[in-house]
């Protein structure tokens, strides 16, 4: 830092003279970034040692000694590295679960549609009423493709759905239904009517105080008891309901933060125009409040996407359980690390790109405000 300031002051402004030779270059960078003090030297040496120990070992395990083509587990184990042949053998099971093998182009198409819907939601040119249309059309297409039974598609019961499309379905349908519910809860929590406020507060705090697992358990064991005799909802839908209920409470708290950030003058201005409560909310307050909370909403979506993996516990075939099912094949036992690394990469790809997007969005939205 200091060095660059000195260099700048030595150069008259406006003249593009290069900095002195002893202020630039790899050696200076190393001296200022890596070896500036005894403590820093120690830290650098420790980290370098760690990197030198870990990275070559990792590369050797994942690539050099790895086996990509073995046809049996025994052959794979003898290679001494990662057994990617296991993934090659089982990738259809891990990605699409037990969906009928010949029909697996349908879940593949569904995956692309859902990714497209999510990508469209991220583009600002779609932030208008078209977005709702995109979601309705996209989700309907997904339902038709997955279930089938019309347009000459064979019917596939949802007990056989699985893998990546199921994970995406749980997350996108979850957010699609939880979002309106969450907004209503947030409005209810800020309502001047005490009874409605209390109902919303109790719901939100109750849900946020318990883990998602307990809600999933509740949906799988208690919901059948709640419903009239002879009336049942299937397991997948019950889990989806639990996820929606859970996500709605968190969305409500985020949206409430946005509502609180709207200055009081906006409410009073809307009042003075004679708008009704719903007109006020729809035309004045919510458009501003939701705009503020878009970045935290994206991170809720990321959390939701990761949390869908918990449906494993009640036995729904999402990406994680599909990987576990692949692992339970007696002929290919003991490749847990490879399978988990593979699906971790899939989760990472989705979550990392979304969080990257959230950060750029935050920057862009905040510059819009700071004039």
């Amino acid at each position, binding site marked *: 830092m200091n060095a660059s300031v000195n260099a700048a002051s030595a150069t008259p402004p406006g003249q593009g003279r290069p900095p002195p030779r002893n202020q630039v270059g790899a050696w200076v960078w190393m001296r200022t970034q890596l070896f500036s003090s005894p403590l820093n030297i120690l830290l650098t040496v420790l980290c370098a040692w760690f990197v030198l120990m870990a990275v070559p070992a990792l590369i050797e395990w994942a690539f050099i000694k790895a086996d990509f083509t073995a046809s049996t587990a025994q052959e794979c184990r003898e290679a001494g590295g990662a057994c990617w042949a296991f993934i090659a053998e089982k990738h259809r099971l891990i990605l699409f679960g037990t969906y009928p093998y010949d029909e697996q182009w349908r879940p593949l198409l569904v995956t692309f549609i859902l990714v497209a819907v999510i990508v469209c939601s991220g583009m600002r040119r779609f932030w208008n009423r078209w977005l709702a249309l995109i979601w309705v059309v996209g989700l309907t297409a997904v339902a038709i493709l997955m279930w089938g039974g019309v347009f000459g598609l064979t019917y596939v019961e949802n007990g056989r759905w699985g893998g990546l499309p199921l994970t995406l379905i749980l997350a996108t349908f979850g957010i699609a239904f939880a979002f309106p519910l969450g907004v209503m809860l947030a409005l209810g929590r800020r309502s001047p009517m005490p009874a409605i406020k209390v109902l919303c507060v109790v719901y939100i705090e109750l849900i946020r105080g318990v883990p998602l697992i307990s809600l999933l358990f509740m949906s799988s064991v208690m919901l059948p008891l709640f419903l009239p005799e002879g009336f049942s909802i299937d397991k997948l839908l019950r889990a989806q309901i639990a996820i929606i209920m859970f996500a709605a409470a968190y969305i409500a708290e985020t949206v409430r933060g946005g509502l609180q950030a709207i200055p009081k003058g906006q409410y009073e201005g809307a009042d003075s125009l004679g708008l009704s409560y719903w007109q006020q909310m729809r035309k004045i307050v919510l458009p501003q409040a939701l705009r503020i909370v878009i970045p935290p909403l994206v991170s809720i979506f990321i959390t939701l996407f990761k949390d869908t993996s918990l449906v494993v516990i009640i036995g729904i075939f999402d990406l*994680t359980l599909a990987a576990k099912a692949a692992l339970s094949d007696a002929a290919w036992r003991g490749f847990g690390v490879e399978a988990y690394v593979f699906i971790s990469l899939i989760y990472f790809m989705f979550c990392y790109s979304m969080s990257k997007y959230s950060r750029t969005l935050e920057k862009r939205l905040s510059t819009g405000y700071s004039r």
Partner: protein
Amino acid sequence: MTTSKTPPRAAPVRRLSWNDPTVRSILYQILAVGLVALGVWFLVSNTLHNLAARNISTGFGFLHREAGFAIGETVISYSPADTYGRAIWVGLLNTLRVAAVGLVLATILGTIIGIARLSKNWLVSRLALIYVEVIRNVPLLLQLFFWYALITENMPGPRQAANPLPGVFISNRGLKLPSLEGNALDWMLWGLVLAIVAILALAHWGNKRRESTGRIFPLGRVALALLVGLPLVGWLASGASLTVVMPELKGFNFAGGLTLSPEFTALLAGLVMYTGAFVAEVVRSGIQAVSNGQWEAAGALGLRRGQVLRLVVLPQALRVMVPPMTNQYLNLTKNSSLAVAIGYPDIVSVVNTTLNQTGQAIEGILIIMAAYLTVSLSISAFMGWYNRRIKLVER
């Protein structure tokens, strides 16, 4: 609003009208409460009917019956002959054990990583960044499975256990650590408690004196001396009867020493590393929230970098950090329920077994929810108290 526009009359007759906002709001509220009550009544009546049809008894009487299942690891003594109530209590204690250890370790790890991310050292900050990004973007459940698979499938058996430090063995039976045994343990523990009490009292007195006279009490050095000294005194007072029990390989497994089961180790490692990454982000943004001017001004007063961090930056950063930190603590506690996926007997897994055996689903779920609500509310009450203590007192 409408009434204020009308000219004042002698006795305004208030008629019930749909145009009166008060009337409407009361109607709406009655409607909302009524609908919710109707829904609840519908569910409860269905449930009672279903329970009667399936011959399931209701109530918490089952808690006094014999459990009849074993629990892998327990904090208090437990046998299958004990009651369901005690089994669930054991589960709750297991949850609290992993949560308490996890909170402390995650805070320490997160603080280190968070400070490392702000380090001027390029290598250190890059490594910390990679850690945070990788860990935060992979589901915790998957990480638990990963650690569990790594320990049980890829670690050597007890006979070939890895031995990185003397007395520490890593094998597919979990982690083995040396333990301390002997009379001196109680004495040293009391010494430690005494030291902590003395430090708290000294800190209070030191603050008072600094406020009145301006003299700074060297608390750090004195505290360190007390923390080491008093347990040492206790050890001497008991006649120095303390032995370190090293785990030893006997037959097919280890004997002696402290055991951390594979389930506990995997759960703890997963929770600590996952929450640590989030805590690191909280710490980083907290420190970054303190403006650079504070650093420079404190530097101009002649404080050393360590002093600036301790006396100027951290007290201000803490204020920003406490609310998000509370969230992370609550998340860790709630996430400890994922233990059920890898077979650690926490409260969710014990209650799950219980309700499979007894069929008392509703009571079981209620117990889980009540337990987590209690723990969550206690943590947020404690953090709320701490937040009020450290928050800026405005005059």
